[in-house]
């Protein structure tokens, strides 16, 4: 509840917009005793400039004005993210249904008829200001909650790394025979433990990465970078994984492939996510191809394709594949799906490089994931 004391301490700022001076004065005279902070604008243009400079808590808006009329002004205010939540009360002599409808369509919250009745004006303004302040409080509570969630996720992910470190250490110690020779079976079981540690670690890394993305703390440091190096490096990293799946990674990089302007670590990360995905859906004995060339559709860019010969993606889910937490339903290849963050991270990273990412797929024939990166134009 907004109390009288709240209003006195922090009076709602009300912007009165009317092209006729005596109309503005009349509203001022009625509202001043109520303790509101009043601002006035004599045209739509002036009103929009004032709203942009310092958003008021409520706007009383005349409709019939030369130049920008009230409908246009309301529409402008309601179509901007920063100002859309400011309540607008249209003040009008037009009492027909069509005018009121047009005002509502423009986004106005309420109407007042001219000549303005003092009691009606004050009550409508008070109600609207109270709703606004309630909304503001809810918004700031939500923002606080979201900041807490991000901080919590980041903290938890970092803390999870510590016990994981000890688990990995002693698993390696056992596997290396530092605590005595293992039987064949013991060794096999410890390998399974190690594999799962690596999966858990990758999930923690993904979780942290998404937290950074969502809080705008993920930083891309663009520099001239070689795609050939990135592809070679990523393919080497994924070799163990591809061999275990019986899949071969082949690179087909154009001889004239220019350097790109990108963050080396990030390109490697994008490639690893796409390769991991491609391997996961590839039948044994097939090839995953990484192809890189100048982008024919946009000469300032290089395009990289990661092509698999897997089961493909059905058309009804292909739109959703880059969504956060999206997972392919009924993926029979692995009972463990991961967090569903890989392609979401991938898309965010490519976008941060001002590139684009998309997928083309034919069911039962395989998928091609493509992304572009800006070419390095310096010398």
């Amino acid at each position, binding site marked *: 509840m907004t109390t009288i004391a709240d209003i006195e301490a922090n009076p709602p700022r009300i912007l009165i917009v009317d092209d006729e001076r005596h109309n503005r004065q009349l509203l001022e005279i009625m509202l001043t005793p109520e303790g509101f902070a009043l601002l006035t604008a004599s045209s739509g243009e002036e009103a929009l400039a004032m709203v942009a400079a310092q958003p008021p808590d409520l706007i009383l808006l005349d409709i019939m004005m030369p130049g920008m009329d009230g409908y246009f002004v309301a529409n402008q205010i309601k179509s901007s993210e920063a100002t859309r939540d400011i309540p607008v009360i249209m003040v009008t002599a037009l009492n027909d249904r069509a005018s009121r409808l047009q005002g509502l369509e423009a986004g106005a919250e309420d109407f007042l008829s001219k000549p303005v009745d003092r009691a009606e004006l004050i009550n409508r303004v008070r109600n609207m200001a109270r709703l606004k302040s309630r909304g503001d409080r809810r918004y700031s509570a939500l923002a606080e909650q979201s900041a807490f969630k991000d901080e919590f996720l980041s903290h938890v992910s970092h803390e999870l*790394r*510590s016990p994981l*470190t000890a*688990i990995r*250490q002693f698993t*390696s*110690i056992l596997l290396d025979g530092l605590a005595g020779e293992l039987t064949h079976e013991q060794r096999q079981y410890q390998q399974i433990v190690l594999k799962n540690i690596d999966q858990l670690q990758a999930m923690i890394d993904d979780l942290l990465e998404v937290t950074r993305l969502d809080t705008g703390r993920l930083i891309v440091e663009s520099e001239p970078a070689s795609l050939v190096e990135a592809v070679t490096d990523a393919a080497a990293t994924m070799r163990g994984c591809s061999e275990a799946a019986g899949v071969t990674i082949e690179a087909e990089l154009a001889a004239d492939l220019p350097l790109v302007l990108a963050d080396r670590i990030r390109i490697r990360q994008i490639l690893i996510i796409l390769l991991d995905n491609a391997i996961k859906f590839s039948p044994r004995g097939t090839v995953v191809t990484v192809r890189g060339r100048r982008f024919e559709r946009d000469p300032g860019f290089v395009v990289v394709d990661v092509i698999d010969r897997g089961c493909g993606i059905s058309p009804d889910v292909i739109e959703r594949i880059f969504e956060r937490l999206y997972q392919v339903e009924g993926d029979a290849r692995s009972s463990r799906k991961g967090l569903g963050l890989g392609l979401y991270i991938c898309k965010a990273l490519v976008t941060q490089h001002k590139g684009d990412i998309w997928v083309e797929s034919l069911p039962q024939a395989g998928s091609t994931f493509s992304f572009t990166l800006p070419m390095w134009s310096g010398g």
Partner: protein
Amino acid sequence: MSKKKILVVEDDADVRLGYHVLLRAHDYDTFFAADGSSAVGEARKHQPDLIILDLGLPAGDGFIVMERFKANTYLAIVPVIVVSARDIRGNRERALSAGAKAFFQKPWRDEELLASIAHTLGQPVGTAPRPA
């Protein structure tokens, strides 16, 4: 030739034991400090050839510990490898510019850490003795 001495500054007791088993098996002598404030004292006492340093430590985090090493004539020249659960981004750069020879994120891979230790100590990489 006498064994090379490694001081490990790490607050987690399990992780300290893991270091001990691993490093001893690769023929290093190990010494330990569990927090930032005892790190310098332990280093002066044992005069290590190399220091493995965690960043998140009670009583003075790893960066403060590195400053304290740098202020000491003998310790200033002992190579430091930072091993931390903190993110590579930002922290690696900061650790390297503070004078660390390498940065590893927890959990690390033993073969990579061992190679880095051998490299830093000027030992041939990959030929460290293994247990029988």
